């Protein structure tokens, strides 16, 4: 007999595997390693001097204190709102549930800085809404939201959906018999919640709380709009100001600050991991449908309470934003004769940076989504179907740039790309490419998750059938695997697009002339006092986001369940 056939056909597999490992390491491990290296060895030599200087500075500790105050406060508020809503929506028979979930989860998909501006416009002295009602505070008085309380309020509303999604998934996974057994044993509904639901739901709730804390801590847009006017700085805004004021010369100090906020975030991330064994309910939800308790005569009051909450936390702020976008100038009262679309015309057609920003944000979000899908489809193929150990380990690292605050990745990218690239001889810093790199690195995890759950739900014999037909790896990927995971990949791409499109944290630190994003232009309008332009721009981004969310409902039936947070 002839010798054993050699592994000729395996060359493609090995090459692809190595390429994927390299790319993902470059996106996840290398930047963070570079950041930590800079903190420990500023300028290349080991020294604790910089660390000592940063840690002995009063500014550092006041910003850290502020960060903790608003993150903990925002988390508490989000927990109260999110868990109350999750209990009501999941365990009771309230009507119009799908619509409510869509509306309640929506803020999560909008830009935090735009939401913050909406709140400013609702509550401030120039509020067209309060003005129309005659309730506006006197002109010249301070907006009550420019305060730690205001930051906590907006953070809490913005991230309540995170607690909601985590807890709702936990509630759905809870065996219904446990509740029914207690009811059968004579327990009244509130006693059931106290004795059964609360103890069982503590781990998922705490995981949601931890996730919420990390998100509040890393948020840049909300404390930037609400804190910077009164010089109430948190760590992300402090890092932003240091970099903007001093330039990259003091990068070592900024690196230490980044490691500091990263370390605080790690506490939350580890807590969440520990509690939920690495499940993130932003994109992974349980599938079981819990049967609900009939509220009878309480149903209408509960429904009114839920929708009133939406009225105050979403409808009114967004209305105020819409109204501001229509005033000709700040302070002019809005009525039929003053309303104008001039703001929209200006940001869409007249303002150069805004025009560039539309192109940049659309282009980079689409490019990031596409590149991530191209990485994630083969990556998840090896990880899930081939159970390649190396990639399963690598997939843990892909989570880091997403879970850690955005400023951490941005500073790491600056450190990595400030010097000219070794072979090409030019620097990515101050170009659009450094932002794109960060988008791909940061949102890889966001795209990977729905694709992984897509693979889990597919029958692998479909691939084996094409293998038997003689198809090599690349052909199988193109003709069989990609078409099969396409719906899940589209969901992932969409989540990436929406998040990148509304993103500010990374681009605020990395933008340069010609490389502006919508977030950056929005932010500079607002900082320059042009709230009406900022509002018009914000309304446009909200329009894009909501249209895309609605568009997904068309193909939602073909998706693995729970990959789109706004679809119930």
């Amino acid at each position, binding site marked *: 007999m*002839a010798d054993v056939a050699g592994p000729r056909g395996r060359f493609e597999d090995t090459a692809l595997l190595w390429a994927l490992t390299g790319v993902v390491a470059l996106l996840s491990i290398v930047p963070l390693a570079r950041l930590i290296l800079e903190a420990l060895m500023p300028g290349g030599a080991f020294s604790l001097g910089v660390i000592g200087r940063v840690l002995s500075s009063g500014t550092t500790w006041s910003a850290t204190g502020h960060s903790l105050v608003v993150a903990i406060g925002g988390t508490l508020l989000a927990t109260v709102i999110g868990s109350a809503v999750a209990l009501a929506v999941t365990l009771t028979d309230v009507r119009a549930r799908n619509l409510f979930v869509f509306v309640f989860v929506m803020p999560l998909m909008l830009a935090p800085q735009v939401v913050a501006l909406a709140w400013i416009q609702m509550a401030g002295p120039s509020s067209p809404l309060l003005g129309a009602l005659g309730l506006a505070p006197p002109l010249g008085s301070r907006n009550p939201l420019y305060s730690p309380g205001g930051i906590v309020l907006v953070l809490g509303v913005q991230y309540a959906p995170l607690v909601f999604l985590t807890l709702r998934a936990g509630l759905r996974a809870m065996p219904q018999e446990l509740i029914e057994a207690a009811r059968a044993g004579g327990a009244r509904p509130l006693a059931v919640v106290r004795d059964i639901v609360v103890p069982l739901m503590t781990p998922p709730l705490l995981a949601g709380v931890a996730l919420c804390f990390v998100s509040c801590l890393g948020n840049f847009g909300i404390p930037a709009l609400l804190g910077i006017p009164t010089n109430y700085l948190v760590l992300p805004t402090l890092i932003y100001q240091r970099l903007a004021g001093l330039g990259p010369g003091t990068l070592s100090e900024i690196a230490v600050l980044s490691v500091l906020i990263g370390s605080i975030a790690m506490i939350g991330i580890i807590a969440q991991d520990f509690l939920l064994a690495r499940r993130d309910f932003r994109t992974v939800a349980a599938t079981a449908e819990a049967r609900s308790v009939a509220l009878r005569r309480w149903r209408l009051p509960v429904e009114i309470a839920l929708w009133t909450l939406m009225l105050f936390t979403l409808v009114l702020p967004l209305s105020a934003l819409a109204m501001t976008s229509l005033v000709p100038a700040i302070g002019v009262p809005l009525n039929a004769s003053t309303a104008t679309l001039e703001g929209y015309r200006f940001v869409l057609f007249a303002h150069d940076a805004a025009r560039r920003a539309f192109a940049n944000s659309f282009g980079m979000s689409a490019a990031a989504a596409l590149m991530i899908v191209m990485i994630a489809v083969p990556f998840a193929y090896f990880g899930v179907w081939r159970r390649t150990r190396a990639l399963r380990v690598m997939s843990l690292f892909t989570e880091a740039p997403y879970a850690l605050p955005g400023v951490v990745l941005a500073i790491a990218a600056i450190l990595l790309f400030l010097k000219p690239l070794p072979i090409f001889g030019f620097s990515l810093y101050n170009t659009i490419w450094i932002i794109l790199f960060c988008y791909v690195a940061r949102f890889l995890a966001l795209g990977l998750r729905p694709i992984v759950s897509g693979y889990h739900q597919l029958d692998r014999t*479909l691939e084996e059938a*094409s293998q*038997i*037909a*003689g198809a*090599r790896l690349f052909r199988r990927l193109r003709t*069989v695997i990609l*078409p099969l995971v396409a719906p899940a990949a589209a969901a992932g791409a969409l989540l990436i697009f929406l998040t990148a499109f509304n993103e500010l944290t990374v681009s605020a630190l990395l933008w340069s002339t010609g490389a502006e994003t919508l977030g950056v232009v929005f932010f500079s309008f607002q900082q320059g006092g042009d709230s009406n332009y900022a509002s018009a721009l914000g309304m446009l981004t909200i329009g894009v986001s909501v249209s895309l969310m609605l568009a997904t409902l068309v193909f939602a039936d073909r998706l693995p369940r729970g990959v789109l947070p706004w679809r119930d």
Partner: protein
Amino acid sequence: MARLTVSGLTKTFGAFRALDDVSLDVADGEFVAILGPSGCGKTTLLRQVAGFDQPDAGSIAIGDTVVSTRERAMPPEERRIGIVFQSYALWPHMSVADNVAYGLTVAGVREPERSKRVDAALSLVELAGFAARRPSQLSGGQRQRVALARCLVTEPSLVLLDEPLANLDVHLRAAMEREFARFHERAGTTMVYITHDQAEAMALADRIAVMDKGRVLQFAAPSVLYREPADATVAGFIGEGMVVPATVAAVAGGTCDVDLFGHRATMRCSARTTPGPALVCLRASALSVAPEGTGALRMRVTGTIYQGGHFRVEGMIGADPGVALHFTVPEPCALASGSLVDLAVSDGWVIPGRAS
């Protein structure tokens, strides 16, 4: 060319031996069935042959090429075999014609040759008018036929079928069975057919490998399995054989005298049989009610089941608890539960090896 040689194949999952020293030699053009209860390792064996998994010991050769050993394996896409999967595994995003054409496209077969062969394969399975449909628009039986056409269109010299009829209803099964037989006759392809239905295996296969708990118990032609089971498990599994302890008295050529609970009967045996205690395999067809007073094998009837035109009579022989026997009697049947009946034994097979 497409002989399949499996030797000493072992596959473990953790501490569990899914395949234990399996050896099979399938001749070119032969139709072999792998028969065994659920979980005995049939699919595991097929996956080794296809190359989806690698064995822990032993080797597999297709034709003259060793394709799998513990160290090295030829990837499935290079083995040039065909598989019909139990779940059909039709690609939902392709039409029926595209499903069938896929293997030809991969092999670089161009139009118009490709369409011609796809059409031929579809008419072979009587689905000529269905080329443009999606798999989701077909019935279970039609999907199975598309899977068959997809597997056959590339004319592989070795075809593996994993319980291809398990999801079909009885009538369709019979029709598809005939189709497989006809196809095998015409194409002369080597076929390995996995099933847990012995009627199917008997009807189709040249030889059957009976598996249990990861081992091949016997590999022989259907009538040999039925008439001369190699051990008690095969005897009990095939055709509901009854395994009964007995004593071999005198051996003469292919037959011997056997003492069965004091009753003397003549049975077939292998040439190596020696006198002494043994297990014998009895078939229901070899048992009948003896005329009053002549028989010596006395059975206590425990129940009768009407099976349309005849009764299946179940009972016990020997001292309590005894050994269960069953046989059939035509309608009408006067045997009531608890009555005693004398049985005549016209045939039996002495299972090789000592009774333990």
